């Protein structure tokens, strides 16, 4: 639990809190990007280079832009008149506390199960590549099918809109 870890954790938590508490929706999206960046830096702190850079590439480079486009192309960029908090906030708080308790119990339980490892195992990109086309080739192909389906779906949605206007 080094100083760097605490700084990065503070950055991620601040970004996530700002993403929920800010009034302007685009500001929320940008704060979420900061939270993503904090997570990526946490991955890099743990020497998981591939995971960290893939996080930046996918989350900040694609998902954040997608979120921002979605906000802009709908009416979400206007400040909501009724305020940003819902009226049933107590139920939401109870559910969030329950989820946090389950996750915390799982994480703390796993520390007792796994032995205290002194040396950090270095996972190179080569090992990740070998694992992807060796042991995990079926999940890889399923993800490819999913991506193809998503692309076909996007094209169909766009095409139907054009035909609907005519």
């Amino acid at each position, binding site marked *: 639990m080094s100083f760097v870890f605490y700084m990065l954790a503070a950055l991620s938590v601040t970004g996530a809190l700002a993403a929920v508490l800010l009034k302007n929706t685009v500001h929320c999206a*940008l704060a979420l990007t900061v939270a993503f960046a904090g997570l990526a830096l946490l991955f890099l702190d743990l020497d998981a280079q591939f995971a960290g850079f893939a996080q930046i590439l996918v989350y900040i*480079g694609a998902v954040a832009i997608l979120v*921002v486009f979605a906000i802009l192309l709908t009416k979400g960029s206007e400040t909501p008149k009724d305020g940003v908090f819902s009226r049933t906030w107590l139920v939401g708080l109870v559910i969030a506390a329950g989820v946090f308790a389950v996750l915390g119990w799982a994480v703390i339980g796993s520390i007792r199960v796994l032995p205290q490892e002194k040396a950090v195992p270095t996972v190179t990109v080569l090992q990740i590549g070998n694992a992807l086309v060796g042991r995990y080739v079926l999940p890889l192909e399923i993800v490819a099918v999913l991506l193809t389906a998503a692309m076909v779906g996007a094209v169909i949605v766009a095409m139907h809109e054009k035909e609907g206007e005519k």
Partner: protein
Amino acid sequence: MTIENPIFVTSDQIFVLLRHWALSFLPAAWQTIAGVLLSVAAIVCIFPALFALTTVFERKGLGRIQNRLGPNRVGPFGLLQPIADGIKSLTKEDIVPLSADAAVHFLAPVVLVVAVFMGFAVLPMGRNMALVDMDAGLLFYFAMGTSTELAVFMAGWSSRNKYSLLGAMRAVAQMISYEVVLLLSSVTVVMMAGSLSLTKIVEAQNHYSFGFPHWYIFTPWGCAGFVMYAIAATAETNRSPFDLPEGESELVAGYHTEYSGFKFALFFLGEYLAMFSISGLGTTLFLGGWSAPFLFLTWVPSWFWFFSKLMLSIFVFIWLRGTLPRLRQDQLMNFAWKFVLPMCLLNLFVAGIWRFLGDGWLRWMVCSAILIVAYAGMGWGEMRRGKIGPRSYRYAE
């Protein structure tokens, strides 16, 4: 392979040796961080200086292509023009629109310049001269490249200006489309070199046979990959002929309309630095990085070759800008998704064939034939569909 004469080795490694010498004055505990700071300072000084030089070359070069002189008042042949430009942008009034989103408006050029500077960290600028030698160096470079898209969007949105927002949307759409092409054309290089680390990619190309280097551009898949990489690089940095997002005659100035003074200078700097870093990556991946073109020229320092190839790529960028007309947004997108992307996927396939056919003339013939037939066939098909015939001229009466 290299001449081991100590004079040549010294001149090749002179910056590394200077760094060691400067660090030897410090206690051991400070040496790592001081070393990093020194290298970062070197990058931050050299590339903006190159940027200043490039602005003059661009204006003179474009002027000559357009049959006029470029700037020639400030200093001999206008070479001191960047100093005048720098003083102007530093002292200009910084105008922020009243309804603009002040925080995001301020942060956008900062995020752009920071993300672009980060890309320089993994480029091997000479033998042993990469700032950080990462195992996943190429992935880091592309991760930083995608962060620039967010900065462009921030600039366009925060200005509360319809034209800026339009320009930013177009820029982001263009950058996302061509990011795919950029990544796919780099993947062939990674396949053949077997590593994502840029220093290893350069070392894989640093071999010579019959005096000719094994650069990847001299292979069929490498040549096609380089052309597609160059197209994607021109689109990624919003350079002509893909500069509709900042087209001066269409959108005032696109996403940086509402920026003046130093912030505009930062955008300008960011665009040119992105050009440098993407050209640097292109030379690393396809043109052999710091390796010399012929075996008898390996005595010239490696950093000289890297920067020469970089400046050659910049010269080609300037040449393209002065020669080709601008592409419309939908033509641009069509081109990316319907022509360049299928060629990229085919190139991956061809690279695989190259690897598994083994050495000899057969693989040259097969790979070149596949690529040329595909290019001609797709081009012919698209032109027939667009009913593009021979050029016709209309003259004023």
